């Protein structure tokens, strides 16, 4: 049933990031092409379709080689990958 989508956390302004992906799923991240070790979470936000700023983002919460966690999203509306850290 309908339920509040994730809440209780906010996001920094997104920054473009280089992502190597296969079938929409990230494999490497960053200019140094750090390998994606694991996908902790994956979610989709599609909103504001009634405005000029349509929001369609496929988010991934990744664990990169070396253990660093990173949240990236694929902008399905405008194209491109972005990094967006939670705080």
């Amino acid at each position: 049933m309908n339920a509040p989508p994730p809440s209780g956390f906010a996001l920094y302004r997104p920054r473009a990031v280089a992502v190597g992906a296969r079938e929409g799923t990230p494999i490497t991240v960053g200019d140094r092409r750090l390998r994606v070790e694991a996908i902790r979470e994956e979610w989709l936000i599609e909103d504001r379709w009634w405005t000029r700023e349509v929001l369609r983002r496929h988010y991934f919460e990744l664990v990169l080689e070396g253990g660093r966690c990173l949240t990236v999203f694929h902008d399905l509306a405008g194209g491109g990958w972005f990094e967006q850290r939670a705080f």
Partner: protein
Amino acid sequence: MSNAPSSYVELHAHSAFSFLDGASLPEELAATAARLGYEAIALTDHDGIWGSMEHAQACRGLGVRPITGTELTVAAPGFPLPSEPYRGNCPPGCFHLTLLVETPSGYRNLCRLLTIAHAHTRGWTDRDELGEPAAPSARRHDLIHPALPFSELQRHSEGLVCLSGCAGDGALAGRVRRGDHRGAERIGRRLLAIFGPDHLRVELQRPLWHGDRSRNRRLVELARILGVPAIATGNVHYHDRRRAPLQDALLAARMLGTLESTEPHRRGNGACFLAPAERMAERFSEHPDAVIETGRLAQRLRFDLNRDLGYRYPGSEDPDADRDLLAACRARFGERYDGTPERAEAERRLEEELRVIAGLGLSGFFLLHRDLLELAREVAVEVRGASAARALLPPGRGRGSSVSSVVCYLTGLSHVDPVKAGLFLGRFLNEEITEAPDIDLDFPRDVREVLIPRIGERYGAERAALVAAFPTYRSRGAVRDLGSALGLPQGEIERVARSVDVYGSGELERELAEAIGERRARSERWLALVGLAHESRGLPRHASQHPGGMVLSTSPLIDLCPTVPAAMEGRRIVQWDKDSCADAGFLKIDLLGLGMLSAVERTVDEVARARGEQIDLSRIPLDDPEVYAAIKRAETTGVFQIESRAQMQMLPRSLPENIEDLTVQVALVRPGPIQGGAVHPYLERKRRLREDPDYAVPYEHPSLEPILSDTLGAIVFQDQVIQVAMALAGFSAGEAEGLRRAMSRKRSAEALDAYRERFVTGAIANGVELEVAERVYDQVKGFAGFGFPKSHAAAFGLLAYQSTWLRVHYGPEFLCALLNEQPMGFYPPDALAHEAQRRGITVLGPHVNRSDVFCLTEPQGDRGGLAVRTGLGYVAGLARADAEAVMAERRERGPYVDLADLAARSGASRDGLERLAWANACSGLSGRLPDANSDPTAGSRRADLWSLGIARGARHFGSSEQLALPLPLPEAPELAPQTPWERVTSDYAATGLSLAMHPLALMRPELDPATASSADLVRIADGAPITIAGMTVARQRPATANGVVFMLLEDEWGMTNVVILPPVYERHRLLIRTAGFVSVVGRLERREGVVNVLAEHLVELERPDLPLAEVRQIEPAAERETGGRIADLGAVLPAAHSFGRRGR
């Protein structure tokens, strides 16, 4: 992966029957499931199985196995039930469970659980029966959110499979999501104790939200602890991804918010569509076993509503029913038929019918109907009181196909002798019927209001309930709901909602631009609205009650379909609408409230009161020449059925001469015969027969002559369709009835095509030529719109005759009855009153010393004449208590001598007195005579209001009103008289009637001198140019008229019918849709005694003067009523019959 992708079965899906939390119809889900190759699909709407029968029917036709279920709101252990309306997803203290039916006993349990979950949802419900207190704080009629007390699960768990609920609010997932793992385990163990390991599954969902993966890992761990399998579900909310925006907007509409404000409650993405099985397997790639489990469980869920409902007709268990029915019929047979020429035929029909009825096991059903009628008789005596006049009338009358049965005639269900009237039984009863025949009974409104709850009491809340109805989105409602969701300005929304065509499909964009301007109409949000409005078309918005359909059952109804309390106190509704009830084979009776039946009864009562005459309507002559003369001249305003604009256009051409002609007449002006092309052949052949009695009516095929001879070869009645299919194409009675049903369903195009081949092949086999077979089939198919069975038309034709008879012989009483039964019929009260005035009936305004609450007749002159006195009920905004107080005091201690007397004695509120004065109902009591010296009817409302201001004292004194003292009042100063226009305007504002003068009479001097009046039309030649002006009484754009619009204009002499062809309509669309007064330039058309004006150009008329600004200071609070300034006549004009509804 080990699992075959196709093993996924969707076990959690919502349709639009989750009411504003689902954006597809069950048949759309079923069709998509079939396309994707699903072997089965469950429908699990919120707290109901409203759409389950549609789901089952749709699936059956597509080879998909329907699974019945629900997503039930449950109050957590230790939490109270919701006591307030709640518009969010899940009320506080509650969680969701997904319940799926495995066995017939599981289905019964589901129905009971849903019934219990709704028991507290209306403030009026008495929870004592069910052992719970009524919800205390909710207002009586608000819909409180349904929820099941957790303790009830235990008693009704057998045969149900429980999935642990959705990702957001599910019993387990909701707790896991909030981090309450221990709470989740606790609830899990309780569910396990109730359902057992075979019937509990931990539900995993992937709505593609943040936290999906960790939540599902926790849930799988919990499943391991509980020792039950986890299962994957999709929580589908629409069949196609493209409906995601509509889902968002509907949810915002449900929460009465905007898309922005409801963001936390919306689903957040478009992931919950019905996805291909492989996609679902991919989404759950971490939990392949949970995917396999869907197919495994679905294999067990074999309950099918199409097959396993187990309904039996009430009375079918009575072994003596056949004998009792025979005895009941025999008891009346002699009285009805002895000594009549129909006796032998009636005897034969009776035996045949009783044989068919016994063979179908329906004898008990007919006895039950007789019992119902007895109950109705008791209620009627109670409601009508001691009135001897009304006591002569039967409590109700049959309509519809039951009128064709001799058994119904003898048991009192129908009042038409079917043998004498030559009615065909097949539609009502035949040996192949698969569902109970419908019996429709018409009742006067007041009898019906009491009868419905009484039936509930007699048969018990568990065995009787009303049928549900589902109002669906059409463009007007969609614009309002979805426009608000999009956050568009309310003013613009209203403008658009009022000016868009309710039924026009492809024109919303253009109408939008007209209403709010091209630029606005191109903005993102308005564009979004256009798309959403299209998508939402036909989706159910909420559940309500059918006006009078009831289902009865011998076994508790709540084992067959859940019942829920209706908004009206004491009434319960089943969760299925009439189509679903018919598919379930439920016995249903339609108890219809018919305004005209009430009006006819009121007339009979009033005639008895005013003249001391007793009228027995069943004995009035059916061949009164005066009545037919009036009908032929289309002088039928106010009578039943044949009063509409379209009927009046036809009467001078069809020239009905007897009750059989009237039977055809009421059936002719229906979409079925019109689209089937029956009207013109019928009129033409009738004309030729009049001119040449030897004229031979042509028939498409000799086999059709006996069937269509009454209607001169045209298909006018629904039962003729059945008979034609049987005679021409060799259909069996059951097949032909199937064809009729296919024609009457909401979405029937495909079903109907299947019959075409069968029809044509059958006809050719009977030696009919292909061309003839196809032509006749097209007539049959054209009929698909809507038509009356002959029996129904016979009942309606009789009522049309009776009401015309009353109109002709008892005009004032009949007008009173019509005015008292409003809203009803085609014309607003103002037009009814004007028409009566033109016939010489005096209609007087309301008066505190003369009027009752209702309109009554009063003696006029000394030759026994009667005038109509408007009731105080017509005074706009007057509280009923005030009206009754004024009357009671007058009856007790005599008429009021002056205003001071009225103010002191009547006990009416200050507001009430002002409204009365403003309605001219205190005329003559201020001691000052009418404002305009020359016109004694002008009234004295200004002086009255002024004096009342003194008499009634200060508006408020502390917390209460100051007492009025019966002191002599000073005479009102000289107040400026109301201008005639002001009088008309205030008459309309105060009573909705302008009795003293017609606005057009006031406009006439200002009009172009070339403007003709409706009285001039008889003298103007066919084809001559004409200008005519009038007040809009009706605007119509019939679906059957190819875009032609009709306007009915009224002036001081009568009505004029204006025909507007599409190009003219396009040029003047806004004016035609909104103007109260118009002037039309065009040409006169005269055809067979019918006069129309074919419009070429239209102009809106403005009122000729403007009121004096300072006068408004003493105008009363009536402004509150109309929401506008009284000076604005447009705001107070009576509601016109505007495109299918009464409204401005």
